[in-house]
């Protein structure tokens, strides 16, 4: 499989007044296309910082980050916006849908920033909403959708520009266990059926079990990186 992500000796240090707080202390990782990776660790382990850097939302203090063989760590803010728009789909714990905006329009939102015609936007939004299992309730605003439905809308939004990578930050954190499992099965399907590369941040082991590779962070370094032998795929 071809390489999608490579990070070399990634460091990130935050300054809190006079105190320097190290969040990442030398991360070296390689992630291929089509992988389904769970990044695990307690809060403060540096996993969120790592995700922000992978998502082109934050700059590393030092080290290099290659996405699709191009170094992106040093690009301009506008170029980052382009990468976030075209190459990366985000799924958040709190869904982060626009309030008072219909499900369909929420899914169309990323396409507003790359010049699709309104007909194309509409067609592609309907297509990905079908893919995540939301064929109806498209004109409902987020406050009239259940948590699981909102997260499906958010996943559809992440998929709509056909990114090469989905970054999901605790996507089941606000959901009950049944709905969490449904959402994780959806991620598995996207990975096996669509070949989508997914990187998932979680601190729950049973959620991480859905991924094929598990990377554990502690105090800003990777402490384990292993394939999930128990992984059985979406058929469970």
């Amino acid at each position: 499989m071809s390489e999608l992500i490579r990070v070399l000796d990634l460091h990130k240090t935050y300054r809190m007044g006079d105190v320097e707080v190290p969040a990442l202390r030398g991360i070296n990782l390689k992630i291929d296309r089509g992988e389904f990776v769970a990044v695990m660790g307690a809060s403060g382990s540096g996993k969120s910082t790592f995700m922000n850097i992978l998502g082109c939302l934050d700059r590393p203090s030092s080290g290099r980050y290659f996405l699709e063989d191009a170094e992106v760590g040093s690009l301009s803010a506008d170029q980052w916006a382009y990468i976030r728009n075209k190459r990366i789909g985000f799924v958040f714990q709190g869904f982060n849908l626009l309030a008072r905006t219909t499900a369909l329009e929420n899914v169309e939102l990323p396409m507003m920033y790359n010049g699709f015609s309104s007909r194309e936007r509409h067609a592609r939004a309907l297509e990905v909403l079908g893919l995540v299992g939301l064929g109806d309730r498209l004109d409902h605003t987020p406050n009239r959708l259940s948590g699981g439905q909102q997260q499906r809308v958010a996943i559809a939004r992440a998929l709509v520009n056909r990114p090469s990578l989905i970054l999901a930050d605790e996507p089941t954190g606000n959901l009950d266990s049944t709905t969490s499992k449904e959402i994780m099965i959806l991620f598995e399907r996207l990975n096996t059926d669509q070949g989508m590369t997914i990187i998932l941040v979680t601190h729950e082991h049973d959620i991480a079990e859905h991924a094929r590779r598990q990377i554990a962070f502690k105090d800003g370094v990777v402490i384990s990186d292993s394939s999930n032998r128990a992984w059985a795929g979406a058929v469970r």
Partner: protein
Amino acid sequence: MQWFMTFRIALRALARNKLRAFLTMLGIIIGVGAVIAMVAIGEGAKATIRAQIASLGTNVLIVLPGSNVQGGVRFGSGAVRTLVDDDAKAIARELPSVSFASPLVRRQEQVIAGNLNWGTLVQGVGPEIQQIRDWDVADGRFLHEGDVDSAAKVAVIGETVARQLFGYDTPTDAVIRIRNIPFRIVGVLARKGQSSQGTDQDDTVMIPYTTMQKRLMRITWVHTILVKAVSAERVEEAEEQITTLLRQRHRIGPERDDDFNVRNLSDIAEAASTTARVMGILLGSVASISLLVGGIGIMNIMLVSVTERTREIGIRMAVGARSRDIMLQFLVEAVVMAATGGLIGILLGIGSSELLKKWAQWPTLIDPAIVAVAFLFSGAVGVFFGFYPAQKAANLDPIEALRYE
């Protein structure tokens, strides 16, 4: 992102909070409305004064009899009989700065034509009055030198008198009677309208001053001498020369006061139009301040809006909005608000100035250029006061913005 879409997003964001958007716009609405209405009032006043000045005649000087001391008693102006028609002739003949001069004798009289009668101002004048006061003749002719020399019983009448006494008939060659003396109408004056004092200038009958002196009033003096200077620059020179000439003619010693007054109409006119201009500037600037306050209101609400929608900004950035997309979105929102307010304000301003014209009889005048400037200015207020909040939104850190509760 396309302009059309940015525009639509802005409209939807405003539609979500209609009352707030309206209240924010209200500042601009009142500001622009006030500018339009105030400037309309100022322009109207200026135009009225300009018209009144034109109807007085340009570069005109008025010589009035002054006070006169006779046996210890000081007689006020009007009660004295110091001016005669020869003074007028001398002024016209001897002074290079004067182009025309005419004596004027006047009295309120009852004028009869057939079975109708009408009280009007009868003025005894010289033919020069036509040039001095810029009278046009609508029908027939004006008085001429021969009429004055022979003290002819001829008259030219104003438009109001013609309408009152003759209705729609042609008055030329008809006969009117003043104190039982028949006068033949030789001409009708063109309409002039109201004077600056609000009197109807067309409500008058003009006859040769000699006829007035000899046949109607039996006097030898004149009430006033009207003088026209050759140019605006020489009005003051004419004033001095008239004073010198009349002091000589009236044999007034160096230590005695003038027995006449020379008044310069252009001074009065100039003062009036300066007053109007100052009033216009004052009204306009007060109104502009309210427009500025409206702009500050927009900035205030946009800042609140940026804070409230921090999370929305974060989401938009995460899915690929560039800083300039966010900037444009908020800027367009501010400009849409300001321009919509400006448009409503223009309608309000035009509406209220029309109402003032209709109900308060104020002579307001809408200048299309001012309307265009007010609209552009309200748009500029949107850009100016929207810029800082928009920049604040565009410079948000996406991670912080996404975490914002």
